[in-house]
């Protein structure tokens, strides 16, 4: 992989539009995430956060706009989508681990079939990724034998093992029992500390305050405001942001 020109964003979204039928879900999103930055996305349910994230991996096809990974386009003619997807890791709210494969099998599948690594090489990489999420002793377990928190950590390892340029998290802790949330957040913190670029949709406000470099507030398919966490949480400028945040302070 070539090093991008200095000043190039790791993830760049330009004028992204997306509708489902008559429903306009994204109405011109512009966003750039710098190398090793952790950007948090907040917003009411239905505001288009998931759709934006899914467009960044083309699980949803954008209607118009550009998505660039280190300057390389993700959309447009001649793009090798499967190759580009290797550079964009995705972590889902519902984990989506493959139930018929062990933790090891989950992590090695794309390493072997897409990156064409040998079995031994893939397993070494998988063990390293599982160690990073603190689960090297669970490599042989199937998803059904793991707690929700452990499943989500395996899912993070699955994305991490491919050495992506940027990782997308869609409410990674929303499906978890409260006592399991901490482990997953700790793992995300470690991943960040190792220099990963991360775009995170989540309502873990405390974590956002502590760990995020920047917070974005979205509503009705558009970015309403953004800034460092102290500013967004401490002195939001928009009414909608204030209204949204007040519900979380209870």
């Amino acid at each position: 992989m070539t090093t991008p020109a200095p000043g190039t964003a790791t993830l760049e979204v330009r004028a992204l539009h997306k509708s489902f039928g008559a429903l306009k879900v994204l109405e011109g999103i512009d966003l750039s995430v710098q190398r090793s930055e952790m950007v948090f996305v907040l917003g009411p349910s239905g505001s288009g956060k998931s759709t934006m994230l899914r467009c960044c991996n083309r699980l949803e096809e954008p209607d118009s706009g550009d998505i660039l990974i280190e300057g390389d386009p993700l959309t447009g003619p001649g793009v090798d989508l499967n190759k580009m997807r290797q550079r964009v890791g995705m972590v889902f709210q519902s984990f989506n681990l493959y139930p018929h494969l062990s933790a090891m099998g989950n992590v090695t599948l794309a390493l072997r079939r897409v990156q064409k690594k040998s079995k031994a090489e893939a397993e070494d990489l998988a063990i390293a990724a599982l160690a990073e999420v603190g689960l090297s002793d669970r490599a042989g377990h199937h998803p059904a034998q793991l707690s929700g928190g452990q499943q989500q950590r395996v899912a993070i390892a699955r994305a991490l093992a491919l050495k992506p340029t940027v990782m997308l998290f869609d409410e990674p802790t929303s499906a978890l029992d409260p006592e399991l949330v901490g482990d997953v957040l700790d793992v995300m913190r470690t991943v960040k500390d190792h220099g990963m670029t991360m775009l995170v949709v989540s309502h873990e406000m405390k974590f956002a305050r502590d760990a995020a470099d920047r917070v974005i507030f979205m509503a009705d398919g558009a970015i309403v405001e953004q800034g460092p966490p102290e500013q967004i949480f401490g002195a939001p400028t928009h009414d909608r942001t204030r209204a949204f945040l007040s519900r979380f302070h209870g």
Partner: protein
Amino acid sequence: MEQIIQQFFNVEIMIKALPLVIKGLGITLLICAVVIPMGAIGGLFAAIGSLSPNRAVRWLSIGFVDLFRAIPPLVLLIFIYAGLPFAGLSLSPFVAVTIGFFLNNSAYFAEIFRAGLLSVPRGQTEAARSTGLSQAQTLTYVTLPQATRNVLPDLLSNVVEVVKLTSLASVVSLGEMLHAAGLVRSLTYNASPLILAAGIYLLLLWPLVRVIARFERRIAS
């Protein structure tokens, strides 16, 4: 009572019929060995087609499946075996049986695989595609293994149906088990060879029927 034993459970006649019936069993198993894999593969492709985003492919696949679910397999078989020769296309009984059962069977396997593929949550495909697996790889390594496991009882059930279906081959004089038993019956005017064949079918299929019942109970609970 005496008469019933004489007419249906005549051991002497059964022993006489045994070599021919066993030979027929071999042909029965041969038909199964050819038709089951072919039908499963044909059905899998039809199932994938029936879920295709391409409208034409989807309707063609569904049309194929529905057509061959509507036509009785015996009608298909006789059409192929006795009808096609009029167009100059004479097929051996074995080839006619293979083609007829393949078409019939693909339709049934297709419905089962389709249900199986639909039972796999969408998130599985999304997770696989998000790691860069192609559509074909996702199917091979992620969705199909889960789909197959989810419909295993139905797949096994269909295997039982195929074994039973092979008895129709007797109608076109392919010497499978029922044909062999029927032949001895017509020579001896005694139904015991048919009982013998029935016994062998039971021996072959009853365990499978039980296994399926157990599977179904486990999945239901």
